[in-house]
């Protein structure tokens, strides 16, 4: 199929991605590096050092980091259990994890308000069994909770996929060579699942770092993440230049996180043992 005609067929998509992926990104840089009069400036980007902005970035980094770690800790055992099930149950199990995504994401997150509220369902249950009530709603904990809830499947599925692909004979080979269950896990299963962990981490960390909806819905608009600041600049203040400048900073962090994971991935594949 490698004929000339087929190659030309890539042109429509090339144009599309130029118009709707590349040029829009150029726009972000254009707006981010100019002021309202169109003059070149670094002021928009440097405004990240303002205490309000800087604090929002730090909180976002902290909360998304915590959520990613908890997601990983919850997902790995889960993915292991799922991958050890026989294939008949398997499809059903995966379905169960994807199905909630079919309920509107805003409503699902809002439902946690009802559950977490001071007089909410969870606290009512806790009180009836004489346990202290939780004060979670409108705190950073609630935001972390929401992040974990929304992004958990993104961590489970890639790890599950790599675990399923691991040849069972490799585990047998490790046992055959004298490794017990723990050694087999540490020396074979874990290193082989690194690519899944890496893609899970990126798939959780980036949306968590940049969210404005979860903090909006569960943080009670008291806690601003960098995403909230950018969103407000665009929709409330209509200051596209400032919003773009902060977005450039945000993209910088996304790129940094990707480079870190890429390095980790290389290490994981290269010299583990």
């Amino acid at each position: 199929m490698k004929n000339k005609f087929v190659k030309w067929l890539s042109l429509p998509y090339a144009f599309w991605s130029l118009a709707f992926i590349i040029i829009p990104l150029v726009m972000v840089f254009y707006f981010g590096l100019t002021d309202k009069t169109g003059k070149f400036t670094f002021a928009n980007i440097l405004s990240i050092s303002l205490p309000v902005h800087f604090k929002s970035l730090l909180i976002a980094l902290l909360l998304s980091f915590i959520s990613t770690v908890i997601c990983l800790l919850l997902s790995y055992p889960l993915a292991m259990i799922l991958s050890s099930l026989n294939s008949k149950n398997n499809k059903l199990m995966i379905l169960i994890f994807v199905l909630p995504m079919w309920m509107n994401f805003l409503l699902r997150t809002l439902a946690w308000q009802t559950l977490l509220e001071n007089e909410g369902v969870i606290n009512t249950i806790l009180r009836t069994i004489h346990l202290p009530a939780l004060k979670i709603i409108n705190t950073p904990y609630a935001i972390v909770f929401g992040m974990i809830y929304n992004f958990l499947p993104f961590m489970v599925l890639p790890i599950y996929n790599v675990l399923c692909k691991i040849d069972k004979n490799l585990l047998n080979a490790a046992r055959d060579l004298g490794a017990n269950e723990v050694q087999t896990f540490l020396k074979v299963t874990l290193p082989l699942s690194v690519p899944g962990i890496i893609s899970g981490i990126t798939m959780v960390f980036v949306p968590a770092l940049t969210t404005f909806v979860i903090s909006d819905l569960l943080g009670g608009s008291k806690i601003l993440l960098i995403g909230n600041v950018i969103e407000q600049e665009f929709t409330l203040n209509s200051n596209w230049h400032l919003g773009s400048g902060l977005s450039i900073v945000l993209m910088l962090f996304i790129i940094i996180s990707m480079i870190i994971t890429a390095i980790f991935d290389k290490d994981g594949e290269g010299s583990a043992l």
Partner: protein
Amino acid sequence: MANVLKKIYIALIFIFLYAPMLVLIVLSFNKSKSRAKWGGFTFKWYTQLLSDSSIMEALVTTLLLAVLSALISTFIGTIAAIAITSLKKGTRTLMMGITNIPMLNAEIVTGISLMLLFIFFNVKFGFTTILLAHITFNIPYVILSVMPRIKQLNPSAYEAAMDLGASPFKAFFKVVFPDILPGVFSGLLMAFTMSIDDFIITHFTKGAGVDTLSTKIYSQVRKGIDPKMYALSSLIFVTVLVLLILINILPGSGKKAKEK
């Protein structure tokens, strides 16, 4: 013992994932408009649903967007996937790199970048801008689900078809296309789902007059969610659930019965 622990763990995660679903379904039968209070059982939100024109309008917009963007992005994406595989390595890597941008980049950045594009070129915000945005973030999903299928193709099948007298065009539709069809179909389905579920990018590319279900819900967050939304979401959820059960479980159990 270990098995019991495993089951408990799965059950806890299951509760974690499905507790909000249960809350929403319960709320859809709640007489009281407040999320926090149970005011008694009612069907009224369901019965009033059809006559609420603004919700119905948002539903139609959402579905129309999903169908159109899924079809168009599947069309463009499938052709692109075939064309990209035939490119030289350098160009191919470049194209795949660009394709990955919307998937790896933060949704908020994709959203505002498209918003800036439309502002810069003075495009009027409305249904068209949302549609363009949805097609844009859907194409990569289509490409990534079609691509592996193309790579698995047996190149001699296409050549054999031509050897047996089929024109290149016919050879493609008779031999190649049926092989990549599952990839095309799952791409279409994924695009449809992503479009329906999207809030962030729609939020930045919609005009004042247009609303999808997501943006409508978001606008109601401060003043309180219209309980009819709970009713509608529960209906959608149950519909999908039933469909999935029909597709995935029934054929399987039928086979099992035959074996025995």
